[in-house]
């Protein structure tokens, strides 16, 4: 039977009213109905569950296009459909470039998919605008202990409610290619910022298309630039804002970090103008010697490159940084019941095992990582341990405003890289812009 929620009720109940005094009320009736149904479906006998979880789930993610993550999502969807034969996942593969734009447009227009991937910059804004359904009742009914979520899970919580579940969280470590280090005469990965800079320059072989380091620098793709450059900048010990959200761009440590980035840029040791996936793909293909990035590189690297990869703690003195992705259920989707059931299925031991076994990333529930993973990949333990203490690469203390501010910050970083604007002047301008914007 094709499940069709009562659209007249759901739309009117879920559409936030224009209220200048404050955010609109969440769609309570719909939330309760969806969560209760999903919970009941997971907790009740199979026959009852199958009848309640049905219909098509519109599932949007750019990860459908990625070989490893796509295979995991399909495998989880397949076992989900076996459990709930009346439900079917409809893949909506959106290209990574422009993914956030498209989702944002759909959310704004009131025609979003049922489930969609969310990244750090957008998460707080989506929650703040009531575009995501709270999942607490479904989590409770499915027997998921939210207190055991990876640290990134807290980023999806507001007022004690959970609005999205972590798909993967990646603490950034220095991942290196042994063959490329050895070709440059380096027997060990760098352990200080100065050694890192020297190693980046030494391992670069422009004539062979080999780069010492990589990060995204495509203009306009500030989210991706932040994701890939954030660990390096924050690694020097400062961020663009203080933990309470005050502008902090002129911190000497931030200027030192930007000078470091500019030096390796001018040395032609970094690919230029690439978006996030393209910049990272060079690492998968053995064209980059080092990067401060996540363990997913091990899962996605080609079979020839994978044995050459190693991981070591960041040589930079600052805080450990993580980047994460979440999946949430749209408040205006057509099939929230089945969508929540899918998320709960992903959180099952089977779903969590599959994520970590194929992708080598830390999933939402790290305690469900099979022991065999640690035996096969001893390097993986620091990533898991790091995920509990790492901080987000986003400027802290800004909440839903972070999404808008990274654009302002990204423009000044581009000015430093592409127009050789001195870091001190760029950060002074940025400080003024942030002060004006956050006033």
């Amino acid at each position, binding site marked *: 039977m094709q499940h069709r929620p009562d659209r007249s009720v759901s739309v009117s109940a879920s559409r*936030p*009213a*224009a209220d*200048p005094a404050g955010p609109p009320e969440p769609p309570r009736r719909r939330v309760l109905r969806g969560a209760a149904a999903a919970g009941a479906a997971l907790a009740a006998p199979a026959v009852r569950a199958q009848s309640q979880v049905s219909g098509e789930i519109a599932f949007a993610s750019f990860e459908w296009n990625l070989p490893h993550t796509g295979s995991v999502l399909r495998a989880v969807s397949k076992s989900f459909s076996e459990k709930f034969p009346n439900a079917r996942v409809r893949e909506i593969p959106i290209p990574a470039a422009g993914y*956030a*734009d498209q989702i*944002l*447009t759909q959310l*704004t*227009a*009131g025609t979003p998919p049922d489930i969609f991937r969310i990244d750090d910059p957008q998460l707080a*804004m989506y929650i703040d605008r009531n575009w995501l359904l709270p999942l607490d009742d479904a989590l409770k009914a499915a027997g998921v202990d939210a207190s055991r979520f990876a640290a990134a899970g807290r980023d999806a919580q507001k007022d004690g409610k959970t609005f999205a579940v972590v798909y993967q969280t990646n603490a950034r470590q220095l991942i290196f290619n042994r063959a490329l280090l050895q070709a440059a005469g380096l027997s060990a990965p760098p352990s200080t910022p100065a050694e890192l800079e020297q190693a980046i320059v030494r391992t670069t072989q*422009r004539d062979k*298309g080999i780069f010492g380091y990589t990060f995204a620098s*495509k*203009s*306009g*793709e500030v989210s991706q630039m932040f994701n890939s450059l954030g660990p390096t900048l924050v690694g020097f010990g400062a961020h663009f804002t203080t933990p309470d959200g005050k502008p902090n761009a002129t911190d000497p440590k931030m200027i030192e970090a930007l000078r470091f980035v500019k030096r390796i840029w001018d040395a*032609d040791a970094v*690919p*230029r*103008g*690439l978006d996030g996936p393209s910049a990272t793909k060079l690492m998968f293909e053995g064209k980059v010697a080092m990067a401060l990035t996540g363990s997913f590189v091990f899962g996605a690297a080609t079979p020839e490159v994978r044995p050459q990869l190693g991981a070591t703690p960041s040589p930079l003195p600052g805080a450990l940084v993580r980047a994460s992705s979440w999946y949430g259920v749209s408040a205006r989707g057509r099939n929230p019941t089945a969508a929540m059931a899918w998320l709960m299925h992903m959180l099952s031991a089977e779903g969590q095992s599959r994520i970590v076994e194929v992708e080598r990333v830390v999933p939402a529930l790290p305690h469900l990582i099979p022991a065999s993973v640690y035996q096969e990949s001893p390097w993986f333990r620091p990533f898991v341990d790091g995920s509990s203490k790492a901080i987000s690469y986003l400027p802290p203390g800004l909440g839903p405003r972070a*999404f*808008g501010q990274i*654009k302002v910050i990204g*423009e000044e970083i*581009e*000015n430093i*890289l*592409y*127009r050789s604007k001195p870091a001190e002047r760029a950060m002074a301008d940025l400080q003024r812009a942030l002060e004006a914007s956050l006033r």
Partner: protein
Amino acid sequence: MTGVAGPGADGDARSGAPAPPGLRRRLHRLLGDPLAEPGRASALLLAPIALGIALFYVGPILFGVWASFQAEGTAMEGGRFAGTVHYESLARDPRFRNSLWITVVFTVASVVVTYVVGLLAALLLMRSFRGRTFVGSALLVPWSMPLVAVAVIWGWLLDYQFGAVNYVLRASGLVARSVGFLTDPAIALWSVGAAQVWRLFPLAMVTLLAALKAIPHELYESARVDGATPWQQFRHVTLPGIRSASHALLLLLGIWAFGRAFTIIFVMTGGGPAGATETLVVQTYLEAFRYFRLERGSALGTVVLVLSAVFTVLYLRARNERHG
């Protein structure tokens, strides 16, 4: 009005055709007699497309104009009138002024170069030489290619790391280090302009070729008899002969470069590096769909609409002049 008296009535008796079927009768009743009431029939037949244009073209434009006067973050929720705040903000914004300047430079440069290249190609094809048909067909290929494909191909050709152009330049020893065709702010606008010209010059070529062929041959013979040099023939016969076509072409190219050159720029550079190729249409997209400031983006879109409308009016006047 001719009524529908029943089967076998009306013109069918004259033509000897069988009685009109039910559908024809109903159509006849709806449209009336096209000969007696041509206005009614035309209006009814045009109604579906007019409705489509109103819904999918005029409607969004009106919504965009309306949204540009609403407070930030309210347009999709019913709106809250904010007056001209977004337009005032744009007037003060150096980024907007920079984008306007980039748009003007891009428009003027790409239109002029497209026109000149198209004219040279058309003049070449006016000459008689072996393989002219093949050359003419080959020169039309860029116009037949989808815009996104053109942008992606040019993007890869000019790529800083792995682009074929940089490879050839380095291999031939012309440069020691890759040229930042798309990553150097001083060059990027000219690079995307080159792609735009490559895509559009066949249109200029075909338009001007048609105009050139319409110039009476006797005019050139008379000029030669009077002792005119080739340059004088070009100046006093060819250019006047293609003047009205050139007006229309230049304005059309201007409209496309000013208000519609989004795809090539966005795919190749995303408006970068550091805003170096951020034309008004690219900035409109970024504001509305990337930075989620729909109302400000709508104000930008309205500015582009008004400026494009000036070009459009000029184009329509030129077209009317051309067609007498």
